[in-house]
Every structure is written in structure tokens, then in C-alpha cells.
């Protein structure tokens, strides 16, 4: 039986009177990559933040491998969930290497040698072995995001969440981050990705989820969503994205 890694049940979140999430349920199975698309301000990022309790949801449950994530066990559960932010959020006062290994040393209490070895391994996986001693401000946006991915992977997460990982990048730097993510998806990592990169979605997604106004409008395999969306809203949104970004950026 295929194992369900992430299960979200009827998640709701309000900010004051504004209903951001109106009841979202979804599942991600082991090794799957699911991509969430949708107009901005529809709660995609809030949904990801609610999964690892960076934002406290008002209603609903989130389960990681069957264990519910609550505000009480959040910091333990977050170790098993890699989170990649839109604006990288590398620790500014630490080198690339220290960014990757600080969680191993301070949170997982590994020895320095062990942590360094794992960190260097992860940095080489994202192609940045030579940049290990540089500080975030000395790296390009694409390099920063790759370090951020390495930082998340070093903790050996069961699940990776990506919150528009390429939206803050110059167009010519997007490819290097996406190719790391594609490799990751193909290596069998379980991933939930919010992105506008339809090329990426088409290449690796097992399922596309179209969200609008705090609800899932439509979901299905990329072939179906892209070529024959069932809902008008999905069709309109995809047309708009295609106009904005061109047909496809990566193969």
C-alpha cells in the first residue's frame, strides 16, 4: 500500500474577517510531487505555512505520516518538513556551510564533524561545494535558494514544502533552482510546491491543484488540467499565465 505522507483535513484560516482558507483537504503520498497553482492572494502560501504551523490554523487537522501536527509538537514535527521560502531567508550572519549545518548541530545535536560532512554533501548536491565559505550576501539569488534547499534537505525531511521558490529570482536564475527541484522530485522526495512555473509542473507534477479564494477549484493530473481543464476559472487562469510567462520555460 502506498503510504500517505501528508494529509490535510478541512483546513480553515481567517485573518480578522477575511477568510483566507475555507476548508482545504488534500493528500500527498510518498514520492509524489503535487503542485498548487492559483492567483495571488488565494491562500496558497498560508496553506503551506499552516502545514508546519508557522501560521496557526483556525480549524482542521494536518497529519504527517499519520501523526497530527499540533502547536505543541510543532517544533519536533518541523524537523521532518523541509520548508523553502520565496525570499530564501538564509541566516545572514552565517556562511553557506553554517546555514546548512546549524540545524544539524543545534537541533539534531549531531557532532560537528558529522554535521559538516552531511552539509557538504548537500551543498554538492545543489552544485555549490565551492561556495561553502561564502556569506549569503556574497551569493546570487539562485545560489541562495539552492543553499536554502540544501539547508532543508540536510535535516532529512519526509516532506518538502516550496513556497514560490523562484518568484523572487531573475529569469536567468530560475532554471538552476528548478533543475535542483526536478532532480529532487525524480529522486523520490515527497513534495508540495506552490509555483507559477507551469513547465516545472508539467515535467514532474503527479497532480496539479488549482486554488482560488481559499478553496480547491480543480485538481487532477497535469495532462488533464493543462489540456482539458473542466472548470472555466482554471482555463482562464492558465491562459493568463501563458500570456504572462510564455508557453514553457523548461523541458
Amino acid at each position, binding site marked *: 500500500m502506498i503510504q500517505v505522507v501528508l494529509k490535510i483535513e478541512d483546513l480553515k484560516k481567517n485573518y480578522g474577517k477575511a477568510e483566507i482558507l475555507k476548508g482545504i483537504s488534500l493528500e500527498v503520498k510518498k514520492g509524489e510531487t503535487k503542485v498548487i497553482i492559483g492567483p495571488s492572494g488565494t491562500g496558497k502560501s498560508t496553506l503551506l505555512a499552516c502545514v*508546519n504551523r*508557522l501560521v496557526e490554523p483556525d480549524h482542521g487537522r494536518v497529519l504527517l505520516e499519520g501523526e497530527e501536527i499540533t502547536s505543541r509538537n510543532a*517544533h*519536533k514535527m*518541523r*524537523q521532518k*518538513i*523541509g*520548508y523553502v*521560502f520565496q*525570499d530564501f*531567508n*538564509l*541566516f*545572514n*550572519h552565517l556562511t553557506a556551510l553554517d546555514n546548512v549545518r*546549524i*540545524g544539524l548541530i*543545534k*537541533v*539534531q545535536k549531531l557532532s560537528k564533524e558529522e554535521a559538516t560532512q552531511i552539509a557538504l554533501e548537500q551543498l554538492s548536491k545543489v552544485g555549490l561545494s565551492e561556495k561553502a565559505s*561564502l*556569506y*549569503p*550576501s*556574497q551569493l546570487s539569488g539562485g545560489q541562495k535558494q539552492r543553499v*536554502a534547499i540544501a*539547508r*532543508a534537505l540536510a*535535516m532529512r525531511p519526509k516532506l518538502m514544502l516550496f513556497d514560490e521558490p523562484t518568484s523572487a529570482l531573475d529569469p536567468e536564475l530560475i532554471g538552476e533552482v528548478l533543475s535542483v527541484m526536478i532532480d529532487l522530485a525524480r529522486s523520490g522526495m515527497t513534495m508540495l510546491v506552490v509555483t507559477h512555473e507551469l513547465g516545472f509542473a508539467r515535467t514532474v507534477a503527479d497532480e496539479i491543484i488549482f486554488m482560488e479564494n481559499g478553496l480547491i477549484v480543480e485538481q487532477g493530473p497535469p495532462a488533464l488540467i493543462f489540456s482539458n481543464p473542466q472548470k472555466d476559472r482554471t482555463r482562464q487562469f492558465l491562459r493568463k499565465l501563458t500570456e504572462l510567462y510564455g508557453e514553457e520555460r523548461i523541458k
Partner: protein
Amino acid sequence: MLLKGTLVTVELTILGLGLGFLIAVPVSFAQVYGGRVARLICSLYERTFRSIPLLVLLMLVFYGLPQIGIRFAPFVSCVLGLGIRSSAYQSQIFRGAILSVGKGQTLAALSIGMTPFESFRYIVFPQALRFSLAPWTNEFTIVLKDSSMAYALGVVELLRQGSYIISTTYEPMVIFLTCAAIYLLMTLSANKLMGYVEKKLQIPGFETKEVSH
């Protein structure tokens, strides 16, 4: 003789700054992380003591408090006055420094499984410390110079020691200029020292400019 006065000035400065630091750290914490009541109380404290002139504060401590039965020696009163006022300013330095470490840094720290305390200890604090160095150097020199107000309570620090000498030598220009030179020298050394610390702790690409006086 002036040297003895200088020593008292240095003592006043260090003790005043130290006391200010000890009060300022929890006050700034409460202002950033505290609940509504704690924030309100700390803001009130900080506004009040930033608004009272140091001389008035010193008079209140030394002459006012004995009326309600609290009596301090002149030196202690000065340390208290300098410390309390400095704590109000230092709390704002630390509050600003903590806030200037972006929210994203904390979110990222939490996202790799750090507890809120660990995020502060390993991620926010090391960066806030660096942000606070330049304004803190400024505060250092302000307290150093304002310690001369201890004169008013009869503490024999640099300035009063100078005026004692003048009463026997009748050379106010020379003596006060010497006092001024000693203040200048101390301020410059303090700046130099803190500038060195700042350089030591610098994050490549995150340089802050040294504050000069």
C-alpha cells in the same frame, strides 16, 4: 589629581552603562515579545525616562527620594540616575536592533525545528548584537560625557576635581581645557575600541558604517 577624577568618571560611566544595560535588555524584550500589558508598562517607562533631563533626575534621586525615606550616597545616586536614563535609551537601541533582524530569519529558524528560544539565541541575537553596536557606541560616549553632571551632587569626578584645582591655581582656561582634552581622549578611545569590536564581528556584505563624534 585629575587622574583620580578621571578614574571616578570612568567608574560612573561603566557602572551607569552596566546598570542601563541590565535594565534595558528585559525592557527591550518585553517591548518586542511581550504581551500588551508588558509592552505598555515598558513603553511608559522608556518614554518617561527619555523625557526627564538628567539633571532633574539626579536631583530627584538625591534630594527627592530621602523625603520618602530612601537615601543614597551621591555616587550611588549618580549611577542610578545615569543608569536609569541610559536604560531608556539602550532599550530602544536593542528593540530597534531586534526588529531590524527580519521576521523571515525567525521563520526560517523555526522551519528547521528550532524552538523560539533557540531561534533567538542562535539566529536573531547574533545579528541584533551587530546592529546595536554602532548606536550603542554612541550611547557609551553620551553617558561618558553626561557623567560630568555628577558635579551637581558633589561627586568628585573629573570636572569637580578640575574645579578644585582651579580654586588653588586660578587657571580656569588651562584646567578646563585639560578636562576637555581628557574627555576627548576617552571618547575617541571608546570609539576606537568599539570600532575594532565592530570590525571583528562584521558579516561580509553587511557592513555598518562607524559612527563618529
